[in-house]
């Protein structure tokens, strides 16, 4: 149990208002596009209109004539510095600027630098590029056919096949399927989409020729990792690179990779010796930077006649686009996809994934999730519903029957993961009660008699977050620990710096609450600083809901180191032995004599003014925390929909979300995260799609046709919680930011399919647009 501090201290569990809000509500945030440096110039990217074409020539003469134009960089220029290609975050490489040919529409071809952004854009229009079109590969299913064009001529292997990966026992699983009396399968596509944070990606690269230092203001979710990659790839000594990640306008995984525009801006600044700003437009953001998903999945479940699941078999085709730029730090090509057994107690299981290249933008990144776990959670929650329907069992009861039970934790899954803790039935029960499940089923039956379409969808997901244990997770070899440094000032106030980087998650508030909890220094007296690699301790950044599981843990551990030292100082001040002291939030007191005490503030002052002999001055600590395991948050979501038969429009009438993320630091912020994640889940289920036509033209490349929900489409969310602490985290927390995005798509889709199940509908692929629903209704003869 966590001891609750007073609201004045504001430790864990208090819904204190966010410290960071004051600047944002006054227009005083400092996002990368707000960075303005003396002498700054502007970059603009020239991009390919073709998805696959030979690059015949680039003529920059006319562009160079334009007043204000300072430089035009092409792939050939970069090749001279060995920078035309750069490594991706997953054992592949990608072109910075094209040489030889282009492989996707909107690929980077040349970088124009001019004195102002309008001139840069004008000059980009004047760059003449001659292309020779090549056959285009769009459909991933055709990537390995004999007549498919080979996209990656740079690779030794002349094939569009990137990897085959499998895990589990194929033979034993196949045997279980042969013997199973009941089988069900579903083919589901987790469609290509894009995180589209409201702020696009960008940077200001500032190379100072006098000091030879490069400062890069960068929309980076992982500033330290990016600094090291700049050093390794660019050959700049690491001490001469400073990455500053200023306020970030949302990330959701989009801002984990390094993009060609960053590299071009750095090269331009190195060349020109002035700061170079490059901010992508929204269209560039959607068309060229880290897309997510594009998993084409089949799941089969073998079960007993009484509805007990036995075996799971999963086969998936992954479309990675032109370069495998998967931003994920596991050793597995499909990341955490093998958590696909979900919340259920399967026996033998087998999962295989094949990755292919196509003429599309490179990826895929982990969009508000841990590296393919959204795909996994969606697939299993869909498949469970399909099987329940096959067996004519209620989907809630079916889940209850097959859950991993509380006494099975720590639970080892057949595909190799160890879940830390869980009580799946507890969350399900609470959600059923909150939504009024029995009454809703009655209502549904009555509505069906009247020909009205109403559906109830359940998703009882298991998440896996907090990458991660160093033995499994690394970026370019750098282990996935994370860090915190706490410095307590003489007056008892503190500054803390972390290796993570908030993009809206509220770190400036929640980390301060951890310090408050551990040291009794009021959260309002603690400043949190992140994102400047010159000052923050080394860390791997914020994604995969890892901040609380890693840096949050490091914060607690660093605070405990400070408390250990504080105890020595308190013993000195109270003239007693350490063994005689006890800790109570914010002070040490002598056992049996509570009036003899020293507050943390008094101890802090003594740390600089009255230090016991043999002890170093000061009161600070650093901790690098390598978690022993991931954490596994979970929950049950229930969605209720009504469908308009005339238009095919789906209205989300209710949505109940019961989350269990262990011990909570700030319930207000947790609830906010859940609202936001559910809204992105809604967007994925019903709206967001990056599609391509047969010529590789991107459809969904602007906010005109890549649909984002507004306040009008977004329903009122109803939230609840259960609490099953993580047994291995220092304060029992698990992380929450991504659960709602991981768990909710299946709830929406299950609700729509449930509304149509009596018509024989088993599955509809996302995004479920009114047109798709109406087409199904027409096909089933419900409308003419």
């Amino acid at each position: 149990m966590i001891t609750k501090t007073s609201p004045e201290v504001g430790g864990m569990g208090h819904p204190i208002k966010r410290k960071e809000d004051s600047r944002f509500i006054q227009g005083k945030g400092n996002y990368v596009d707000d960075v303005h440096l003396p002498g700054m110039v502007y970059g603009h990217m020239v991009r390919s209109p073709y998805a696959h074409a030979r690059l015949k020539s680039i003529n920059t003469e006319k562009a160079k004539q334009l007043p204000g134009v300072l430089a035009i960089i092409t792939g050939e220029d970069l090749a001279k510095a060995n920078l035309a290609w750069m490594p991706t975050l997953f054992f592949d490489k990608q072109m910075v600027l094209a040489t030889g040919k282009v492989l996707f529409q909107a690929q980077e071809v040349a970088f124009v630098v001019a004195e102002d952004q309008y001139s840069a854009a004008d000059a980009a229009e004047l760059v003449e590029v001659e292309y020779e079109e090549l056959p285009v590969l769009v459909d991933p299913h055709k990537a390995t056919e004999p007549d498919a064009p080979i996209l990656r001529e740079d690779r030794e292997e002349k094939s569009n096949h990137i990897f085959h990966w499998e895990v589990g026992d194929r033979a034993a699983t196949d045997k279980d399927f042969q013997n199973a009396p009941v089988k069900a399968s579903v083919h589901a596509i987790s469609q290509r989409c894009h995180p589209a944070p409201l702020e696009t990606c960008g940077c200001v690269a500032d190379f100072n020729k006098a000091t030879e230092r490069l400062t890069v203001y960068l929309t980076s979710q992982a500033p330290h990792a990016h600094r090291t990659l700049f050093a390794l790839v660019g050959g700049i000594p690491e001490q001469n690179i400073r990455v500053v990640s200023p306020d970030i306008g949302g990330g959701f995984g989009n801002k984990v990779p390094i993009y060609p525009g960053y590299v071009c801006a750095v090269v331009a600044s190195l060349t020109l010796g002035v700061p170079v700003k490059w901010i992508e437009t929204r269209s560039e953001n959607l068309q060229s930077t880290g897309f997510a998903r594009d998993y084409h999945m089949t799941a089969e479940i073998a079960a007993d006649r009484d509805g007990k699941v036995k075996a799971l078999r999963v086969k998936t085709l992954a479309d990675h686009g032109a370069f495998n730029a998967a931003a994920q730090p596991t050793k597995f090509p499909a990341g955490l996809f093998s958590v696909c057994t979900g919340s259920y107690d399967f026996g033998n299981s087998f999962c295989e994934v094949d990755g292919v290249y196509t003429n599309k933008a490179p990826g895929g990144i982990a969009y508000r999730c841990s590296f393919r776990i959204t795909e996994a959670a969606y697939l299993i929650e869909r498949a469970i519903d399909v099987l329940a329907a096959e067996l004519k069992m209620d989907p809630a009861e079916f889940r209850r029957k097959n859950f991993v039970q509380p006494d099975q934790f720590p639970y080892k899954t057949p595909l190799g993961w160890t879940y830390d803790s869980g009580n799946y039935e507890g969350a399900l029960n609470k959600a059923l009660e909150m939504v009024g499940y029995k009454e809703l089923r009655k209502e549904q039956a009555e509505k069906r008699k009247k020909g009205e379409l109403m559906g109830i969808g359940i998703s009882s997901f298991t998440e896996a977050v907090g990458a991660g244990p160093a033995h499994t997770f690394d970026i370019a070899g750098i282990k996935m620990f994370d860090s915190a440094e706490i410095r307590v000032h003489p007056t008892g106030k503190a500054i803390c710096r972390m290796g993570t980087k908030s993009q809206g998650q509220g770190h400036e508030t929640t980390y301060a609450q951890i310090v408050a909890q551990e040291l009794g220094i009021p959260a309002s007296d603690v400043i949190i600083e992140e994102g400047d690699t010159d000052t923050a301790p080394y860390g791997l950044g914020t994604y995969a809901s890892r901040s609380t599981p890693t840096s949050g843990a490091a914060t607690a551990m660093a605070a405990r180191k400070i408390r250990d030292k504080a105890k020595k100082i308190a013993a000195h001040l109270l003239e007693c032995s350490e063994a005689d002291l006890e800790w109570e939030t914010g002070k040490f007191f002598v056992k049996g004599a509570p009036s003899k005490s020293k507050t943390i503030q008094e101890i802090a002052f003594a740390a600089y003014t009255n230090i016991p002999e043999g002890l170093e001055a000061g009161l600070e600590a650093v901790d690098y925390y390598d978690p022993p395991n991931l954490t596994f948050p979970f929950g049950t979501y229930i969605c209720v929909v009504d469908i308009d038969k005339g238009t095919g429009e789906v209205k989300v009438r209710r949505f109940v979300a019961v989350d269990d993320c262990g011990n909570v630091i700030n319930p207000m912020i947790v609830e906010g995260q859940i609202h936001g994640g559910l809204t992105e889940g809604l967007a994925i289920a019903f709206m967001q799609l990056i599609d391509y036509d047969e010529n590789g033209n991107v459809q969904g490349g602007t906010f005109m046709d890549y649909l984002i929900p507004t306040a009008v489409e977004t329903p009122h969310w109803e939230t609840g919680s259960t609490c099953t602490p993580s047994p291995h985290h220092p304060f029992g927390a698990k992380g929450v930011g991504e659960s709602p995005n991981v768990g909710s798509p299946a709830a929406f889709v299950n609700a729509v399919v449930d509304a149509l199940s009596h018509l024989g509908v088993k599955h509809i692929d996302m995004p479920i647009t009114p047109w798709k629903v109406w087409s199904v209704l027409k096909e089933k003869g419900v409308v003419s």
Partner: protein
Amino acid sequence: MAKKQTVRLKVNGREREADIEPRLLLVHFIRDRLGLTGTHVGCDTSNCGACTVVLDGKNVKSCTMFAVQADGAELLTVEGLIQNGQLHPLQDGFKQEHGLQCGFCTPGMLMSSYALLQRNPNPTEEEIRWGISGNLCRCTGYQNIVKAVQYAAGKVAQGAAK
């Protein structure tokens, strides 16, 4: 480069004048020429609303206008909401009700909400949702923004009743 034109307008109560290219977007004028970087750019198709400002009492997306079109107008940006060191009730509401996360959409949301409350001081939830439907938010799911606007409407009504 086209011949420059002179624009004069009142921004957050202060007279401003500048010689600008006719094609300069209002949002770039506000951000780059006036240095008021609270107004953001989130898209290139006038969908997201991050650039929303209040022009002669109406909320407009400042990326859809040329600065020369605002000649003679009265402009309010997020920086002008605070009065005599006092946060506007909407600003307070966004903080109290956790109506923001990354903060990037917040200035635009505040300005659309400001214009909404000017038109309709006591909006229903549905009216608020429609009132901010020109502004996208990727973080909050809108629910707490709705509560923030309700909070502000309540405060303004209280203030008027006093």
